């Protein structure tokens, strides 16, 4: 917008690079909107059109009809994996929240220098490839890895099922997704006026009460934003369940990949995609309702 206006002005002032008469004829106020057209075209072509294509395939491949959705809901595997996917993602969201909240709080009370360090620690893993980090976990957590080796030699227990288990998958995913929880919560906490807590204490609230009645409700936007981001990103994980989990931890993305690239059943693969999209939107709408009306922790606010 700024760019268009300045070009316009420059054109007027210097008199070159445009036809002043033509510019004058047109009303000025809407022209900046033309700049939105590329974005509009890109969004419709690269996001909307494929989505429409995916939906059409799900009801027309190999023949027109709802057979792919019938298959989807009558095959027990699909429902098991769908529930597992939402369950794992929910678990990871909770784990991230429990770790990120104190961490983000710490970031609000330390000096600028320390805060930068804390921020670096949380961002650093984000700059490394997921694959590399997951392979590192694999080496650490496997039955013959250092952790189980230490447990065995020191305490004579194990090997504990650290990988090929929900624990391994949740650990790997939480590490990757933690920054997406810390950053929104930090930005929410940073905005809270610190004097509110002494004020609450002054009015007779004990620290716990002050936290749950004053601080936590004020940080709700950050909790909500972080949780939604982590939950949605978590639904699409592929490589971490494949490497740190067993077949019993495989998630929806693997099932889709299998239908699309393994079996070449694009109708069924796209039906799975549409199902996940719809289910995710439904979950978000429900959570959104919940978050707007009352607190996320409705039971504890009193």
């Amino acid at each position, binding site marked *: 917008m700024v760019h268009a206006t300045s070009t316009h002005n420059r054109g007027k002032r210097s008199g070159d690079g445009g036809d002043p008469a033509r510019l004058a004829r047109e*009303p000025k*106020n*809407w022209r900046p*909107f*033309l700049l939105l*057209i590329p974005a*509009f*075209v890109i969004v*419709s*072509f690269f996001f909307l059109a494929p989505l429409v294509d995916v939906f059409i395939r799900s009801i027309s491949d190999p023949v027109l009809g709802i057979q792919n959705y019938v298959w989807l809901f009558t*095959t*027990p*595997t699909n429902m*098991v*994996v769908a529930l597992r996917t939402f369950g794992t993602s929910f678990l990871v969201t909770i784990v991230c929240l429990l770790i990120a909240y104190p961490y983000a709080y710490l970031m609000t009370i330390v000096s600028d220098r320390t805060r930068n360090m804390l921020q670096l620690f949380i961002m650093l893993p984000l700059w490394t490839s997921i694959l590399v980090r997951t392979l590192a976990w*694999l*080496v650490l957590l*496997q*039955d*013959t*890895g250092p952790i189980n080796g230490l447990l065995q030699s020191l305490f004579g227990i194990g090997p504990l099922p650290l990988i*090929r288990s929900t624990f391994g998958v949740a650990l790997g995913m939480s590490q990757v997704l933690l920054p997406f929880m810390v950053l929104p919560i930090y930005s929410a906490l940073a905005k809270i006026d610190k004097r509110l807590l002494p004020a609450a204490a002054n009015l007779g609230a004990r620290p716990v009460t002050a936290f749950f009645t004053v601080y936590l409700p004020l940080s709700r936007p950050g909790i909500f934003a972080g949780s939604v981001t982590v939950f949605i990103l978590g639904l699409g994980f592929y490589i971490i369940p*494949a*490497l740190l989990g*067993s*077949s*019993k*931890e*495989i998630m929806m993305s*693997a*099932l889709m*990949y*299998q239908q*699309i*690239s*393994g*079996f*070449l*059943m*694009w109708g069924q693969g796209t039906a799975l995609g549409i199902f996940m999209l719809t289910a995710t939107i439904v979950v978000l709408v429900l959570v959104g309702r919940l978050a707007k009306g009352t607190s996320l922790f409705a039971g504890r606010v009193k």
Partner: protein
Amino acid sequence: MRNPKFKRQLGALALGGVVTLLIAGCAGGGAAAPVVERDLGTPVAGVVPEGVFDGVTLTYAASGGIFQDGQRDAAWDPFAKISGATFLQDAFDAGKLKAMVDSGNVTWDVTNATQFDTARGCGTLYEEYDYSQVDISKVPEGTITDKCMVPNILYGLVVAYNTDAFGDNPPTSAADFFDTEKFPGKRTVSQSPYVDPQTVEFALAADGKDINDVKVSDIETAFDKYRALGDDVIGWTSGAQAQQQLESGEAVMGLVWSGRGYGAAAAGAPIAPMWDEWMIMVDSTAIPKGVKDPQAAFAAVNFYLGADQQSRMTELTSYGPVNVDATPKVDALLNTWLTTEHLKSGHAPNIDFWVENYDALSAAWAGWVTGS
């Protein structure tokens, strides 16, 4: 936005943009340059006339790793050097191939697929071979299993076991793989997204079943046999993972691709193959349906099948050559992993049955790899 005229213009502009892009998109897929047929004479495996494919670009799509690098160094790059063509490498993905064929814009010329892939997709996803353009006289007997392929490599699904775990008393049959009393420890089995009929056949062979007389109901029986191993069975989703599990000792035994077992042994792990009972695997060299320059693709495959090229390929990848005259110089370790030495004790797959019952197999496979 208050101006209605603006709204109309904006709409028209957006529509114009959409139409332009659509036209551009369609035009890209349709036109193909007319291909001149060159006179190459009678094909001889491993030979291509000098400079005949000047300016032609070919792409080989396969599954990567030392396997594809070795094939590139042994055959595709030398072919490019002599014929004047440019040879590119890409990663194969069946879904991507289907998208190319469906849209009529095929950018691959030669691919590596399984025998089951080419048998199922012959004529729809893969081009039928014109065997007058490819010299198949030196191809091992029985390895051409449908009209859309020549063999790519001879390898196997073999039991690779840890010699430290079972030094003097190694497993000697498919049944031993399932005997956790005599051979304690974890086993790794394919749970990759790619359906593998021979993993099923292996379990049936362990029960003493004749692979050439399999019924649909046997498929679940086979998976139940793996499931009955309980915590002692772990899965691999990629060849690299299988190798890692063997090398690290996570698994004391694995039903893995022979090249991956060799990979673990070559890296110094105490891993040896069990040849008493194994599954013979043949990969297809296939040409995508609607390939831009069939003659060049056939000529490249013809070159790939040469004895020298196959010897070199085996030396670089450990996978068995598909030319009976090939004499690869292999060291002692590589020799213990060469499938071509043990063809007598191997089970060949019942391809017809699996092509016919692919849907039943893929449904059961989907359950197996997702733990349900």
